[in-house]
């Protein structure tokens, strides 16, 4: 339970340097959102933490027990929902019980024997979330897990993640390009610019959070400006 310490991380693809001395710490139980434009390397950093990608320089310390929720559910079509949740674990009675409990937590109680192909996009993503939580990870990696969901499902899913993270208290890295989402969920927001963390902001709002809370708009505008986006429509 030592959290994440990444110092001076370098990652190159060919002659493009994606991460150029990138440093980020996540304390145990802390929720950090990493914002960045597409192609900025935020997913690359998450993949390095997940052990799916090597880095070309710097040091990365991450807890051993880490799990990922990807943008797509990535379920095995030939396995029932419970076996997907148990992927990589022995199907002991104890694990099965834990899987059922995890499914209940994501509001899929009783769906243990369903096939992934019969689920909606939101349901499948909830199975993926249960699969990530059932292992009681020290580090939960969320790679734009809401990006492919419709707007209504996304709001429900964000609330669900907030609740479950609050309960389980893993360290969390959420990679996203959605500024609102980052502010709503994270303790701290980091913006990835030119291969390094350009700006880091502690989110000052008490939980539970709502979009309309005083200061939300200002923080949102500030972060968008850091991302190079001016959000005024119809001014001309």
């Amino acid at each position: 339970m030592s959290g994440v310490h990444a110092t001076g991380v370098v990652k190159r693809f060919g002659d493009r340097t994606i991460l150029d001395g990138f440093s980020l710490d996540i304390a145990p139980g802390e929720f950090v959102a990493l914002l960045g434009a597409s192609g900025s390397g935020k997913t690359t950093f998450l993949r390095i933490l997940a052990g799916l990608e090597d880095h070309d320089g710097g040091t990365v310390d991450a807890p051993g027990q880490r799990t990922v929720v990807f943008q797509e559910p990535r379920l095995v079509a030939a396995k029932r929902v419970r076996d997907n949740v148990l992927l990589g674990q022995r199907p002991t009675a104890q694990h099965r019980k834990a899987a059922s409990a995890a499914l209940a937590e994501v509001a899929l109680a009783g769906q243990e024997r369903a096939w992934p192909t019969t689920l909606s996009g939101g349901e499948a993503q909830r199975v993926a979330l249960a699969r990530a939580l059932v292992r009681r990870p020290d580090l939960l990696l969320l790679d734009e897990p809401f990006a492919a969901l419709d707007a209504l499902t996304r709001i429900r899913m964000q609330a669900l993640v907030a609740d479950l993270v609050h309960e389980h208290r893993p360290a969390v890295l959420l990679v996203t390009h959605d500024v609102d989402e980052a502010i709503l969920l994270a303790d701290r927001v980091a913006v990835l610019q030119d291969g390094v963390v350009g700006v880091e902001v502690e989110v000052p709002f008490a939980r539970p959070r709502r979009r309309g809370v005083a200061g939300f708009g200002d923080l949102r505008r500030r972060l968008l400006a850091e991302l190079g986006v001016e959000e005024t429509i119809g001014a001309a």
Partner: protein
Amino acid sequence: MSAGTLAPGTVASPSETPRTVRRRPPAVTGRLGDIALRTSVPVLLLGLWAWGSGSGRIEERIFPSPWSVATTFVDLVRTGVLWDNLSVSIGRVALGFVIGGSLGLLLGTLAGLVRLGDQLLDPTLQMLRTIPFLAVAPLLILWFGIDERPKIIIIATAALFPLYLNTHSAVRNVDRKVLEAGRVFGLRGLALVRQVVLPEAIPGILVGLRVSLSVSLLALIVAELTNAPKGLGFLMTSAQQYYQTDVLVVIIVIYAVWGLSVDLIVRGIERVLLPYKHLGRSA
């Protein structure tokens, strides 16, 4: 390049079976009407055959009547001749298929999974598969004599390639993203193969199984036409020598039923291994 230009049911990737096939609306609605319409042409053909034989327009020596085919069939069954030969043929296909099929499955999995295996095996197998296996039969007979061996080898060779090709591409085309998820959740090596790769590849492997079983039947027919002391092919050759067209027709029908059974068997396996296949959402 809008998605709207693709008609529904159009599937680009050969590894995926189309889930929605758009059917034209039936000319006659209702279940009974549908069945009646679908069976009408075969029934008409049978009727024509019976009428032609009965009225003497079809010469019995050239093409036997339905009833003489039926009596011959009953005779062949009662005397045990049919089962004697059929069981030998089934045994040959079973042995040849088990050898060739499992080799195809094994090599296909290996070449699909491991880069070294792919480099070592695939070019050679792709090259060999262009040789029509029937063309090799005479050579095999010269090498291995006229006993059981060349027959089994012909059938095994025929069964190997469809399973190899389909397994190879099914294993290779397993969604890399799902594989990655398996790795994140601690699966490595054989466990990853068993828990993710093979389950995901089953639909493709079953396509190979179906083709492989059908081709085994073709190989059986060819293998048995030369110097078989027993088997359906032997029955055919001797019937041909004695001009027993009724026996020939009986055997042709048996081959047809055989082919049909293969389809039913694979469908049964599909139902057991892929129970989710028919449950999919249309989205």
